[in-house]
């Protein structure tokens, strides 16, 4: 008995070892902010990546090779993100990296990835990540600038020319505020009032009153994130302002409607992704099957509503799988070339077509203009 045990255990161990070596030939690394202040971004991203890797391995992997995911939680700290990126590349020897939930962590990871010539797909918003284009860095989320453009396009259609802005001073709000002011001229829109609030403020009536009293204002735009925009929306109704109110993609979630209250939020417009209105999409919409498949799988597995941020991770992984399939090799160089040649890949955020000059590959059609009607989202045609 003793003898059999002594011989079977090592044999089993060797078999296990061999098996794991043989079946995990594509190693993908990820560093996301699953905890800390950016957990609302990183948590759905981590869950999405784990789910998708399991799904694809259950289907037999890519070109017959299984995928192994090495996932780290950088807690939103760029210094840690850099360490984990180094660890993924030098120690875990991954062939590609997905991650960087925030702009700071993405900028840290990309400099390591570029040095080591490992493809990196960022999940953060800032345009600086892919502009100027860096050979190995790609990203999936649309930029703040595109959100501004989408909003201004809609304003143009409604004949709005003069607006007031009220922005949060957090990273998201401040970045979008700057981008909107920068791009407003192209759409012939004049920003007559430009107010800000601290994300922790509990009342924005003073700023809103100032905007209301500014002559000529036809609509109000609120770039912001978290509870700030919900308070702005409530104060807006309390002051009885009748002008159209635009929110940003930062609050494109059901949570925003709940937080601001169904009555206050009626008629608010914002740019969001197809994921948020999956059920409302036309049957022939190219994004419908992708969005529904992800939404159903995610909500079934995690029992929580799907979020735009998880969608970014979904698209990052889809881009990588598509590139690996086409490249037919897991060499970083080949993956990079294939990523750059991505054409008409349908994701949850939009349809990606990359080129040597464009490592984001989305256009304005990625955003849908949404309006709250009867306490729920609806598409603006």
């Amino acid at each position: 008995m003793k003898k059999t045990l002594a011989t079977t255990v090592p044999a089993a161990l060797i078999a296990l070892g061999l098996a794991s070596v043989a079946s995990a030939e594509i190693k993908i690394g990820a560093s996301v902010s699953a905890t800390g202040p950016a957990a609302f971004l990183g948590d759905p991203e981590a869950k999405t990546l784990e789910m998708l890797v399991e799904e694809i391995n259950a289907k037999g992997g890519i070109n017959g090779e299984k995928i192994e995911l090495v996932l780290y939680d950088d807690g939103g700290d760029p210094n840690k993100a850099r360490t984990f990126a180094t660890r993924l590349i030098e120690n875990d020897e991954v062939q590609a990296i997905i991650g960087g939930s925030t702009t700071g962590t993405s900028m840290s990871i990309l400099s390591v990835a570029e040095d080591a010539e490992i493809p990196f797909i960022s999940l953060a918003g800032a345009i600086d990540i892919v502009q100027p284009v860096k050979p190995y860095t790609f990203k999936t989320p649309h930029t703040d600038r595109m959100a501004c453009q989408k909003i201004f396009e809609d304003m143009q259609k409604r004949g709005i020319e003069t607006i007031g802005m009220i922005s949060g001073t957090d990273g998201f709000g401040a970045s979008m505020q700057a981008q909107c002011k920068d791009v407003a001229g192209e759409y012939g829109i004049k920003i007559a009032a430009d107010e800000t609030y601290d994300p922790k403020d509990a009342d924005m009536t003073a700023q809103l009153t100032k905007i209301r009293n500014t002559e000529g204002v036809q609509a109000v735009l609120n770039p912001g994130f978290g509870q700030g925009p919900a308070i702005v929306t409530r104060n807006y109704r309390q002051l009885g302002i009748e002008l159209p109110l635009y929110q940003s993609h930062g609050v494109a979630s059901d949570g925003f409607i709940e937080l601001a209250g169904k009555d206050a939020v009626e008629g608010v417009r914002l740019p969001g992704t197809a994921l948020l209105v999956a059920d409302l999409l036309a049957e022939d919409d190219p994004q419908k099957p992708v969005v529904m498949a992800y939404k159903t799988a995610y909500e079934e597995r995690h029992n929580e509503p799907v979020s735009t941020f998880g969608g970014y991770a979904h698209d990052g992984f889809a881009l990588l799988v598509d590139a690996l399939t086409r490249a037919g090799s897991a060499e970083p160089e080949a993956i990079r070339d294939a990523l750059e040649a991505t054409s008409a890949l349908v994701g949850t955020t939009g349809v990606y077509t990359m080129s040597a000059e464009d490592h984001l590959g989305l256009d304005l059609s990625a955003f849908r203009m949404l309006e709250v009607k009867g306490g729920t989202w609806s598409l603006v045609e």
Partner: protein
Amino acid sequence: MPRLSAKSATLLVLAALVVVSPLFFPSGYYYRVGALIFVNGLAVTGIVILTGYAGQISLGHAGFAGIGGYACALAPVHLGLPPALAAVLGVLISGALAYLVGRPILRLKGYYLAVATLGFGILVSMVLNNERQLTGGPDGIIVPDLGLRGLLKDWGLNISNGEFWYFFCGIALLIGAWIALNLRQSPTGRALRALHGSEIAAQTVGIDVARLKLQAFVISAVYASVAGSLLALQNKFITPDVAGFMHSIEMVTMAVLGGAGSVLGAILGAGVLTLLPQVLTVFAEFEQLVLGLVMMLMMIFLREGLLPSLLRKLRGRDE
């Protein structure tokens, strides 16, 4: 057998660790972790001077690290300084600010310094977050390359980025530790430790308590500033996190955990707290929980700090 002085022994142990450890590194990633330990160790050595020697507590030292870091990001762009001189500028600004903040506060006894530095740290962090035009705001800003590695390459010494920063930070830590250990044995150091024991007694024997406390505070601010600069130059990117309140707390925790009274102990604390999050990734979502537990257990069972407690245990066995 001739006995080594505590100072030489500490420096020898440190130098040996810096030089010998790479022999056991299986991959380049370990150089990165090593470099981080050295940078944190340098900042914590400053805390030893302030807290361990002089008995004062600062809750805003990350503010000085932030100044050092952002000096390296901003001075080369706006003032045209080379990054190395930018770090020196950071040191000057940090030292001057520490002097201004410390001068009125350190005349008082008690916890005033902790409260004042708490405010100072938050102030620096707010400026870095909100002055978007200058600092890039919460998204951070790119830091220019130090350029020294390129120079070394020209001289025929071609080492990887990770190796370069490992040895560069290692040397910086050795110099920092050497200065701190010298200070400890100087009249100033003895006076500092005397006022740590009892300010009234120290005053009675003619020690200018306020001036000495201020000196210790300024010196430790300079340490934090240099550490911030090294971190920024190494990462080539910096965000306001470096000046955040959590980073201040982290520094104090490292010093206390390792043993705030001794340089080697504090560096050991920095090493443990830098390594733990890397080791604990195996616990996935329980990582934070285990980290907290480990720290609690250390503080319960090794109350004087890691190194002093362990040394005492070892000695106890000898006797």
